[in-house]
């Protein structure tokens, strides 16, 4: 029994989902829906950023001083890695349009590898902070010899909460990229694959954008 979609677009029943008129509408719905999800993510991180902003204004001097304890060099390198990762991910769609399976896989692997490098460096930073007793997390002792230690502790709470949540998002993204590498190697239904890659690329770029705000907020507002 031909569906409404099949009658309007003969031969495309397999490609276009039942509820859509044509593939263009389906793609617009995919992307609009993805952005609704990203909106919830923006508000999730937004809540943490808003809280941080209030404390940053309230305890300005203490936060500025505490920020100097973060490793600016490692943070900057991490930002560079993520930007490069974002570039690799952004080039997936054009590569897919060319039908180049090899390029797509290469770019996906590069994006994931750079993401893993980012997490590695983040781990090194966390290790430094924990060994210097600057990590008021999981019941660990917090020892701070600068001004207003109680306020500085708040800074480090925000630092671990925000970068930790971001790192979790990175992990999920790397997992998604891994799945896409596997699907791309199989190369079944390239049209569908292309749509899925576009959505994963959106998510990865978003995680990149969040870091572009995290880095200045935590590392650069130092004094």
């Amino acid at each position, binding site marked *: 029994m031909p569906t409404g979609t099949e009658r309007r677009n003969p031969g495309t029943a397999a490609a276009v989902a039942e509820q859509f008129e044509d593939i263009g509408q389906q793609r617009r719905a995919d992307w609009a829906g993805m952005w609704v999800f990203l909106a919830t993510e923006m*508000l999730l991180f937004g809540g943490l950023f808003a809280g941080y902003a209030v404390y940053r204004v309230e305890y300005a001097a203490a936060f500025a001083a505490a920020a100097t304890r973060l490793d600016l060099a490692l943070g900057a390198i991490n930002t560079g890695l993520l930007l490069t990762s974002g570039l690799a991910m952004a080039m997936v769609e054009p590569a897919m349009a060319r039908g180049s399976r090899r390029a797509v896989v290469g770019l996906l692997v590069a994006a994931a590898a750079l993401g893993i490098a980012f997490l590695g460096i983040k781990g090194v930073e966390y290790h430094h902070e924990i060994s210097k007793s600057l990590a008021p997390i999981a019941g660990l002792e917090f020892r701070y010899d600068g001004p207003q230690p109680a306020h500085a502790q708040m800074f480090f709470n925000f630092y671990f909460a925000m970068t930790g949540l971001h790192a979790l998002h990175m992990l999920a993204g790397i997992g998604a990229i891994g799945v896409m590498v596997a699907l791309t190697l199989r190369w079944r239904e390239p049209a569908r694959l292309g749509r899925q890659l576009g959505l994963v690329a959106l998510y990865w770029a978003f995680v990149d954008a969040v870091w572009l705000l995290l880095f200045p907020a935590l590392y650069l507002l130092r004094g």
Partner: protein
Amino acid sequence: MRETTQCVAVYAVLIVLLLLSLALTGLALSPWRVAGHLAIAAIQVALVFAVFMRLRSAAIIVRVMALGATLWLMILFGLTLLDYAHRGIGYPA
């Protein structure tokens, strides 16, 4: 090929902006420097949204969703900071 070149060009701009923001840390901390850091970050995010996330060429419905997300985020920030900005005026802290 043009799209790839655009992505690389935007990437170059993002790196330059990153270096600029890093250079700013050499100055003494002031409201201007804070504004500078935040402005650079905002431009970087706008570029990622417009080019890497292809909002520039997206359908209207997609752009409306992205705009809505940003607006709601601004409401969160605006009302929260507005509240705290007015504490201490006639009310106990």
